[in-house]
C-alpha cells in the first residue's frame, strides 16, 4: 500500500450487482442522465484529444505543410531518424534539463523552507502566505518582462552589484551560453514557490504530532526528527510536486519565446524542445517533423516520470 503513496484518490468502486444483460440495460436507462452529463467532455475530448493524438502519430510519417497540403510526402520513419540525430533537438533537451534541475531544487527547497518557517510561527502566518502567493497570478509574459528588466545589464540588480564591486561590469546574460537557463529558473521559482509552500504546509499540518513527541522522548534531536519523520511523511507531497513540475517544466515555451528568437539565441542557449518544435512547425512549416519532435519529447517526459516512480518506490521499501 505504501508504495503508491502519491496517488490521488481514485473513485471508490460502487458496490454493484453482477451485470446481467437485461439488468445492465435497465440500469443504463435508469441512470441515463449520467451519460448525458458526461457527454460534453467525451465529445470534446474525442475531437480535440483523441483525434489529434491519432493524427499526431500519422503526421510523423509525412513531410506535411498545412499551407501547401498537396505537397504531402510519405517519408516513413525518416522524421524519427532525423529527430534522433538532430543536434538542435538534443541541445534543447539538455537546456531544459539543465533549467529544470535548478528550478526544481529551488522551488522545492524554498517551498519546504518557507513551509517549515510558517509552521513554526504562531501569528501572522496568513499574511505571509498571502504575500508569497501573489506571483502565482502573474502571466508568463509579465513575469519575463519583470524578470528581464530586473536582471538586465542596466537594471536595478546589476546596478547595485557593480556599485558594490561584486561585478566588474554589467553582464548581457541573454547572449552568454551558460547563464540564461539558471536565470530563467530563478525567475520561475520566484513565481511558483508559493504553490510548493502551500502544498507542503498542508502536508506538514497533516503529520501526527505524536510521532514527534514519542521520538523526542527517545532523545532524537531536531535534525533527526526532520530526517526520519518530516521528510518521509511529506513524501506524497514532494513526489506530487516533483512529477507535476517536471511534466510542466519540460514543456517550457513562453519564458524563452518572450526573450529570445525562435531558435533560442545565437548559440541556441535558450532553445527548449517546445520552442524548437514551434520553429519547425511555423518557421520551416514542417508539421510532420514538428509532430515527431512532440512525440520524442513526450517519450522523454514519460521516461523521466517512470524513473521518478521507481525512485520513490525504492525509497519507500
Amino acid at each position, binding site marked *: 500500500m505504501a508504495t503508491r503513496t502519491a496517488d490521488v484518490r481514485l*473513485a471508490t468502486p460502487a458496490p*454493484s450487482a453482477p451485470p446481467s444483460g437485461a439488468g445492465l440495460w435497465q440500469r443504463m436507462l435508469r441512470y441515463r442522465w449520467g451519460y448525458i452529463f458526461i457527454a460534453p467532455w*467525451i465529445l*470534446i475530448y474525442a475531437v480535440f484529444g483523441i483525434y*489529434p493524438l491519432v493524427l499526431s502519430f500519422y503526421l510523423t510519417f509525412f513531410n506535411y505543410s498545412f499551407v501547401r497540403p498537396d505537397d504531402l510526402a510519405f517519408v516513413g520513419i525518416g522524421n524519427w531518424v532525423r529527430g534522433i540525430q538532430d543536434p538542435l533537438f538534443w541541445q534543447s533537451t539538455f537546456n531544459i534539463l539543465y533549467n529544470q534541475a535548478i528550478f526544481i531544487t529551488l522551488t522545492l527547497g524554498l517551498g519546504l523552507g518557507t513551509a517549515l518557517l510558517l509552521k513554526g510561527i504562531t501569528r501572522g502566518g496568513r499574511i505571509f502566505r498571502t504575500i508569497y*502567493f501573489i506571483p502565482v497570478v502573474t502571466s508568463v*509574459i509579465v513575469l519575463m*518582462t519583470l524578470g528581464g528588466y530586473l536582471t538586465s545589464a542596466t537594471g*536595478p540588480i546589476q546596478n547595485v552589484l557593480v556599485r558594490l564591486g561584486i561585478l566588474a561590469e554589467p553582464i548581457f546574460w541573454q547572449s552568454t551560453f551558460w547563464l540564461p537557463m539558471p536565470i530563467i529558473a530563478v525567475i520561475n521559482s520566484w513565481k511558483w514557490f508559493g504553490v510548493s509552500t502551500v502544498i507542503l504546509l498542508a502536508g506538514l499540518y497533516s503529520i501526527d504530532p505524536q510521532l514527534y513527541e514519542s521520538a523526542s522522548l527517545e532523545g532524537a534531536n531536531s535534525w533527526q526528527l526532520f530526517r526520519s519523520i518530516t521528510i518521509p511523511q511529506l513524501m506524497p507531497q514532494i513526489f506530487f510536486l516533483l512529477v507535476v513540475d517536471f511534466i510542466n517544466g519540460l514543456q517550457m515555451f513562453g519564458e524563452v519565446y518572450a526573450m529570445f528568437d525562435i531558435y533560442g539565441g545565437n548559440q541556441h542557449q535558450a532553445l527548449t524542445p517546445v520552442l524548437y518544435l514551434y520553429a519547425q512547425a511555423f518557421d520551416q512549416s514542417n508539421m510532420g517533423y514538428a509532430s515527431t519532435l512532440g512525440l520524442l519529447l513526450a517519450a522523454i517526459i514519460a521516461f523521466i516520470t517512470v524513473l521518478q516512480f521507481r525512485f520513490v518506490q525504492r525509497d519507500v521499501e
Partner: protein
Amino acid sequence: MATVSPPMSARPRLKLGKLLPYILLILGAIVVFYPFFYMLMNSVKPGREILHSPNALPSQITFSGYTDVFARLNVLLLLRNSLILAISITLLNTLLSALGAYAIAKIPFPGRDQIFGFMLATMMIPGVLFLIPTYVLMYNLGWVNHFFALIIPAAVSVYNIFLLRQFLDTIPDEQLEAARLDGASDIGIFWRIVLPLMKPALTTVAILTFMGSWNDFFGPLLYLTDPNLWTVQVGLLQFQSGVPGENVQEVWALITMITLPLVIFYFIMQDQFVAAFANVKFK
C-alpha cells in the same frame, strides 16, 4: 473586581529563536514583493530615469505612460478580446465541468468508474503532443483567427471535474436521495440542490479557469494572428518591441494594467485562489 489580569505567559519574551523565523519570513516577503514595487514605480517614473537610474525613486510622478499607451495601442480592444475569451471559457467550463463532476460523483451509471479512470489517465498526457495536430485540425476547420479555436477545446476540463468531484464526495448521498424520492429529476437536483451546494468549489474552479485564460499566451499566439483579435498578453509582447527606450514607462503602465486587476482580485478571494492549487487530496 471582575477584571482578570492576563497571565504572565501571554506576554511573549523576546528571544532570538522566536524572532529569527519572522526575520527570515519578512526578508522573503520583501524579495517576493520587490518586482511588484518596481512595476508600480516604473509605471509612474519618467522613461529616462528608468533607464539611467534604475534604483532611484522617481524625481517626479508622471502618468504619461498610462495616457500614451492608450494613444499608441488599442488597449480597450485588447481588454475586450481577453474578457470575451476569459468570460465565455469560465462560464462554459464551470457549468460543463460541474455537470460532469455530478455525474461521476453521484450517478452510478454503468461504465462510470472506467470513464473516470480514463479521465485521470488523460491528465498524465503532456500537452505538447496535441500542439501540432490540433493546429492542423483548427486550420482545416477554418478556426484560425476565430475565438472558437480557444473557447471550444477549453469548454470543459478534467482537472476541474476532478476538483469538483472531490468536493461533491463530501455531500452525503442521502440529501440527494431525499429529493429524488420527492420526484425530482437529475437535472432538477443538479440545478436546485447541487449547484447551490457547490458554490465554494465552483468559485475556486471559476477563478482558476479565468486566470488561466487571462494569462494564456501560447493559445492566442498560435490561433489569433489577426491584430484585431489579439489579447492583452499577445498585445503586450508585440508592443514591447516597438517602444523606444525613452518611452519605456508605457510598457510598465501596460503591465500594471494587465496585472493589477488580478492581484486585487486575488487579495479579495485569496482563499479560493490558494484552494485551487492546494486542494489536491493525498492518500
